């Protein structure tokens, strides 16, 4: 059973990560690896599309905390899109909306990067 799935797509100069299923302490390392690869490839503009994510625990949240600074230090960012309410509520409870940008649509999130140049 595939509990969690992470997929990378390029949309212009932006890297879009699709996350799917259950993101917990067991599956978070896979997302971590994806971010590590992006760093190696110098891809710092990242949108994470949560459309198919059912569940997130603090282990998943920690991955974004671990990498966002590096992205920003390199003129990039991690932006979030297409999050369902139950997942958003966890982010919200922990104050993430102060620190991260959330968008309804992936396209909106991607465009924010182009606007910045």
């Amino acid at each position, binding site marked *: 059973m595939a509990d969690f799935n992470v997929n990378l797509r390029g949309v212009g100069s932006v890297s879009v990560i699709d996350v799917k299923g259950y993101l917990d302490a067991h599956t978070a390392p896979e997302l971590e690896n994806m971010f590590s690869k992006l760093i190696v490839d110098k891809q710092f503009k990242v949108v994470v599309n949560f459309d198919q994510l059912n569940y997130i625990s603090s282990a998943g*949240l920690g991955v974004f905390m671990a990498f966002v600074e590096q992205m920003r230090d390199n003129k990039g960012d991690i932006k979030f899109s297409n999050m369902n309410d139950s997942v958003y509520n966890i982010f919200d409870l922990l104050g993430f909306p102060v620190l991260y940008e959330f968008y309804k649509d992936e396209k909106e999130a991607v465009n924010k990067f182009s606007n910045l140049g």
Partner: protein
Amino acid sequence: MSLVELKFPLELSVKSSTDNLSVIRDFIKSTALSLGYSNAVIGNIILAVDEACTNIIKHAYKYSHTGDIQIELNRTTDKFVITILDSGIEFDSKLIPEPDIKEYYKQRRIGGLGMYLMKKMMDEVVYSKNKNKNQVKMVKYLP
């Protein structure tokens, strides 16, 4: 219409591996469903138990898969009581400061959110010792 009224206690015992988190979540889900909580509240209870068990795997058993995690579910007249026991490294929760979420982000720490979430999601969270085992007891008031 036939209502299921679970007969408590119910108990699940699993090895201390993050592989088993999904079975733990499913167990909590099927129990909480029959207690009549909304889906949103069930999600919160599941998250709290996931965080508690993740901490046991990470901190009490240091990621060894050979430890035991015992999850006992009870209900009183007005409470759903979840007791989680482990035989790992002793833990004094009083030594862990309540995180200041603002400070937390300033320091950009990566962990440290689990216990905060447990307390937010549940009505009571109490750590103690029980016959040489570590125990965390979490309570959610019945709907």
